[in-house]
Every structure is written in structure tokens, then in C-alpha cells.
């Protein structure tokens, strides 16, 4: 069955429309990633409306290809102008920029491209092998397990988000509360609609995430743009690494790929965490640590392999459980839902054609990324020069038309703006917005599974502890909250003191 679906997906992806979507998505990702003002997440959010008219598999493949392309694109500006194009390329600056200063910009970009390719292929293989197995396992899940999965998703993304765990969980809870707006799935009672008919079907979360991820960024581009002309290093040398260089970076890229896949699987942690994790581990394993930060090719490879490997990793929980592994995959989930496909365990069976096409599309996007990167990186250098003040109003225009296009509703545009303002102020107090989006996504699943579980148990909450899978998942949720509390930090510092004394 799984093999049949894999073959089906493979033949689907070879269709000219799919291949074209992959190439266009990757190219857009490469350019969007190269622009410091635009992140992969925002790029996917802005491209989402264009996929409405496409076949689900084609549209979603395009979004995934954009995600993959942007992960490499981010390194272009990191290397050439010392500004990561996406937060996921932050660690690439450390060794990439010194290389560019030494006149080896082409080499740095080539190392980044090869490492991105290895990381991407590694994560695509992980997705292709882990997702069907986990999907099969998740098919056995009933409402009790699904409730625990939703709780786990929200607590992990909340507690592992950058900054304070309390703020992360509060953001997630606010998202869950906003997900309660609309018709109650069990009784059909309208909740918190305040008499507005537009809210009867709930808060459209694609509208919310376009606002949350794009408006604050556009305003930030304007409020902090210093107007200083960016100094761009020239790419004059050869890009592809030599055989010796490839041998040198290979073990690091494999290690970083593993790190990237696992970081991607954990909700709440994405490319920005993975790149530093990969970089630090490469430094720890290196014989000569002093060369790091001075233009070491291993440093560039470590960061770039890790951030591309995140893509496949983050798609694993998104596809199999319906829990987005990163904010970018949350939008991809939104894309699926617009096409009437509910992410979760049934995705691997009922919508196997779409899912397996998407998995293969990710694999093919690596090839597209490599070829486009090889031939168009020099062209992408020009977009790094585009001023933030030019980008900001264009982002707004795309947000407006994109949020309108979902339901052809002007109300959605107002709602998008309201979420944008909310996101801007959340940013100002360092409250992460990703948990809010995930809360909005998981809210309905949490609500329905809770009601069904309590109906089955006759109102007893013990049902969640009596079920072994749900008990384990809830225990992990509890641990993810506890590990972020000061008490855990206190115990950890005590234990490390003891081990030093011993």
C-alpha cells in the first residue's frame, strides 16, 4: 500500500505542471530568501493566494519548494552583505561573510549550495521513510490520543519558542481561545461571534497568519531602515567545491542534516535554532576551533545543511499528526485546509495522492534548488540590494489581495490588519506569534476531541491518564512546561555543580 502510494506520488510529480510549480516555487524561494526583508514564512504566506486556483498537490508542492529554496537563498545575503536573508541563515554569517571578505564569496555560496542540497535530500529521505510509518501509527489514534497530541503541540511550541515560555504558552492559549469563535462543533451553538455573520465559520487562520507574519515585518522594515547603502561583495571565484573540500565538509553536513531533521520535527523549533545547533556542534567536533568565525568552510556547511534539513523534518508532524513543525509548515497546513484537506492521520491514506506528490516534490525541489542556485545565484545578488522602503508597501499590497482572495471578503482584510497590529505589539513585548497561529489551528481539534473523549468516559478526565499513548504524550507536555520553569533551572544548576565537584 505504502509502496503503491509512493509510486503514485512519483508519477504525479513527473507531470509537467508539477515540475513547473517546483521550479517556479524554488526560484521564488531563492529570491525571497535572498532579500533580507522577506523571510521564508512570509514568502509562503504571500504566495498562498496564488495556489488557490491550482490542483492541491501542485499548489502545495510549490509552497514546499519555496520553503526549500528560501533556506538556501537566505545564505546569499548572509555571505555577501553580512545580513541573513532569513533568520535560519543567521549562523551562516559567522564564516560566510569572512570568506566573502577574503575574496571567496563564490566558494562560500558554493559550499552553502552543496550543503543545502545534502541537508535537503537527507530531510526528504527522512520524510519519505518516517512519515508513512508514523502516519500508520497515528491512524490508530482516537479522540483521547488526538486530544493529547493537540495539548502536546501547543505546549511544546509555546515552551520552546524563543524567549519566555510563559509568553509562548499565553500566545498559544490566546490562539486556542480565538479558535473557539464560530459554531461549536458538537452543539452547533454560535460562540463569541458578537452577532457578526462573518465570524460564524470561525476565524480564518490563513487570514490571521498573513496578518501576523507580514504586517509587523513590513512596519519593522520602515521603522528601522537606516537608509545606509548595503555594501555587496562580488562573486568572482568558482562556486563548486573541490573534491578535497567536499570530503572535508561531508561528515559535518551529515551531522547537521540529522540535527536539522530532529529540530524540524519538534514543534516550535525551526531553521533559526537548527542553524546555530548545527554550527555549534561542528565547532565542538572540530580539531582546530580557532578557524571558526574566520572563514571556515565547515562553519558555512554546518549551518546551511541544518536549515535545509529542517524543511523535511518540520513536515513530518505536519503531515502525520496535523501539528505544524514550524511557522512555515503552519502556513502550508493552511494551504491544505483551503483545498478542503484536513491535515492529520488521514492525510497518508485518504489524500495519499496529494501527500506523496508533496513528499516527492520536496525531493525534486532539491535538484531544482541546486541547478537554479548554480546558475542564478549571481542574479540573486541584485535583489539583496533592494531597499526595505521599497519592499514594505509591496508586502502590504500582497497581504491585502491575499487575505481578500481566500473568501472574497473585505471583512477578512480588516481581520488580517487587526491580526497584523496584534502581531506588531506582540513583537514589541517579545511574545512569539507562532504559538498563536498553532493554537488557532489546533483549537477545533482540541475542542472536538475533548468533547468526544469525555462523552466516551462518561465525563471522567481520568480517561486521558488511563490511555497509555495519551498518558505519555501528556507527560511529555508537562515536562516541556516544567523544563522552562525557574525550578527546573535551579535543579539543573544544582546537578551540574554536583557533577563538577565529583
Amino acid at each position, binding site marked *: 500500500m505504502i509502496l503503491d502510494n509512493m509510486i503514485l506520488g512519483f508519477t504525479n510529480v513527473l507531470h509537467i505542471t508539477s515540475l513547473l510549480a517546483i521550479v517556479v516555487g524554488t526560484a521564488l524561494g531563492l529570491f525571497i530568501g535572498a532579500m533580507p526583508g522577506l523571510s521564508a514564512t512570509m514568502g509562503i504566506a504571500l504566495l498562498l493566494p496564488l495556489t488557490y486556483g491550482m490542483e492541491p498537490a501542485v499548489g502545495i508542492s510549490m509552497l514546499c519548494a519555496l520553503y526549500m529554496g528560501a533556506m538556501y537563498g537566505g545564505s546569499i545575503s548572509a555571505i555577501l552583505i*553580512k545580513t541573513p536573508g532569513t533568520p535560519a541563515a543567521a549562523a551562516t554569517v559567522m564564516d560566510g561573510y569572512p570568506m566573502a571578505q577574503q575574496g571567496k564569496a563564490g566558494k562560500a555560496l558554493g559550499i552553502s549550495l552543496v550543503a543545502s542540497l545534502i541537508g535537503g535530500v537527507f530531510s526528504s529521505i527522512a520524510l519519505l521513510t518516517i512519515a508513512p510509518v508514523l502516519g500508520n501509527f497515528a491512524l490508530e489514534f482516537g479522540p483521547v490520543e488526538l486530544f493529547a497530541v493537540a495539548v502536546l503541540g501547543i505546549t511544546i511550541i509555546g515552551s520552546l519558542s524563543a524567549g519566555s515560555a*510563559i509568553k509562548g504558552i499565553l500566545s498559544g492559549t490566546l490562539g486556542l481561545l480565538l479558535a*473557539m469563535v464560530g459554531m461549536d462543533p458538537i452543539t452547533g451553538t454560535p460562540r463569541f461571534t458578537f452577532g457578526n455573520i462573518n465570524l460564524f465559520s470561525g476565524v480564518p487562520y490563513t487570514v490571521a497568519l498573513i496578518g501576523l507574519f507580514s504586517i509587523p515585518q513590513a512596519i519593522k522594515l520602515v521603522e528601522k531602515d537606516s537608509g545606509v547603502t548595503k555594501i555587496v561583495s562580488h562573486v568572482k571565484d568558482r562556486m563548486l567545491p573541490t573534491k578535497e573540500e567536499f570530503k572535508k565538509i561531508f561528515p559535518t553536513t551529515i551531522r547537521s542534516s540529522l540535527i536539522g531533521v530532529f529540530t524540524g520535527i519538534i514543534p516550535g523549533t525551526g531553521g533559526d535554532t537548527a542553524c546555530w545547533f548545527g554550527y*555549534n556542534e561542528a565547532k565542538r567536533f572540530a580539531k582546530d576551533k580557532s578557524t571558526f568565525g574566520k572563514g571556515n568552510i565547515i562553519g558555512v556547511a554546518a549551518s546551511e545543511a541544518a536549515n535545509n534539513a529542517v524543511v523535511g523534518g518540520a513536515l513530518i508532524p505536519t503531515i502525520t499528526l496535523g501539528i505544524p513543525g514550524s511557522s512555515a509548515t503552519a502556513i502550508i497546513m493552511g494551504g491544505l485546509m483551503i483545498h478542503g484537506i484536513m491535515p492529520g492521520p488521514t492525510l497518508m491514506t485518504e489524500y495519499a495522492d496529494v501527500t506523496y506528490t508533496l513528499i516527492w516534490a520536496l525531493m525534486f525541489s532539491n535538484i531544482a534548488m541546486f541547478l537554479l542556485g548554480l546558475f542564478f545565484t549571481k542574479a540573486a545578488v541584485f535583489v539583496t540590494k533592494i531597499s526595505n*522602503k521599497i519592499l*514594505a508597501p509591496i508586502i502590504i499590497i500582497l497581504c491585502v489581495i491575499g487575505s481578500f482572495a481566500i473568501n472574497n471578503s473585505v471583512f477578512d482584510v480588516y481581520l488580517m490588519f487587526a491580526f*497584523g497590529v496584534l502581531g506588531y505589539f506582540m513583537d514589541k*513585548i517579545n511574545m512569539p506569534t507562532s504559538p498563536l497561529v498553532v493554537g488557532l489551528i489546533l483549537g477545533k481539534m482540541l475542542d472536538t476531541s475533548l468533547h468526544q473523549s469525555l462523552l466516551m468516559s462518561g465525563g471522567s478526565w481520568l480517561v486521558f491518564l488511563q490511555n497509555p499513548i495519551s498518558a505519555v504524550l501528556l507527560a511529555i507536555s508537562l515536562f516541556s512546561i516544567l523544563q522552562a520553569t525557574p525550578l527546573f533551572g535551579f535543579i539543573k544548576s544544582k546537578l551540574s555543580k554536583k557533577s563538577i565537584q565529583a
Partner: protein
Amino acid sequence: MTNTKKVSIAAVLATAFALIFLNKAVKLPKTAGYLPKILIALVILLSILMVIETHFKEKNNVKQKRRIDERSEEDEDSDDDKTPIDYKKAFLFGLMIAIYIFAMKPVGYFIVTPAFVIIAYRYLKSTSWKNTIIISVGFTLFVYLLFVLFLKLPVPMGILQ
């Protein structure tokens, strides 16, 4: 404004939001209001905890964030942290967006969009007049071709209808 003050305002707003929802939740049937009531209680509790945490963090000047988180956060803003925030510019740009959005339906998308680009570019001193006109017209045309002709989206035409 100190962090504690900023966070306190956010906590008050989150609590007010939760209380508005509570006012509606109490009137709901038991099953429909069950989860919302739990979430409302959590929002209020977490808002209080957020203020306490920020207060102590600020007081002790203790950074409890893990190293990876800290570094990634710093690097995300590394290029713009050195320049001060121009709140007036941010507010006026926000106001322009609001006017653009609210004028879209009565006036029409294809009138307000180029107008928004021209006004925003002029105010932000983004580029020359020539480029401003080219970008505003070019981008509006691009949206028209893509969304109206290709995707057949019924974009609000306003007075052009």
C-alpha cells in the same frame, strides 16, 4: 517605557479580552462553554504570571533564555538594533495601511493601490518619482493580470464599477 510596564499593559488587555469572552461564555450551554472557560482562566493566570516573571527578570537582570534562543533572537534583529525605532514613521505607515484598507471597498482596489504606493514611497523617500510611478502602475497591473484575469477574483472595483 520599562519592560514591566509594557508587559503589564499587555496583560491588562489580554485579561480584558478574556473577560469579554467570559461574559459570553457564561451564557453558553454547558458543553459549548466548557473548554472556552478553561482557556479564559488560563489566559488570566498566564497574564499575571507574565507580569511577575518580567518584573523579576528586570529586577534581577537575570537572563534565563537558553543560549541558542538568545543568539538566534539577537541575530534576527542584529542589523537594525543599532538604529533607533522611528515610532512616528511606524504609526504613520500603519495609518496609511488602515486608510488603504478601509478605502478599498468604497473607492476601488485599482485606485487606492497605486495611490497607496505613491503616497507611501513619497513619505518614506523610497525612490525617485519616476521609479515610484513605474512601480505603482506596474505592480497594480501585475495584480490585475494575475488576480482578475488569471485567477478570476472579484476584486472590489468601487467607483470604477
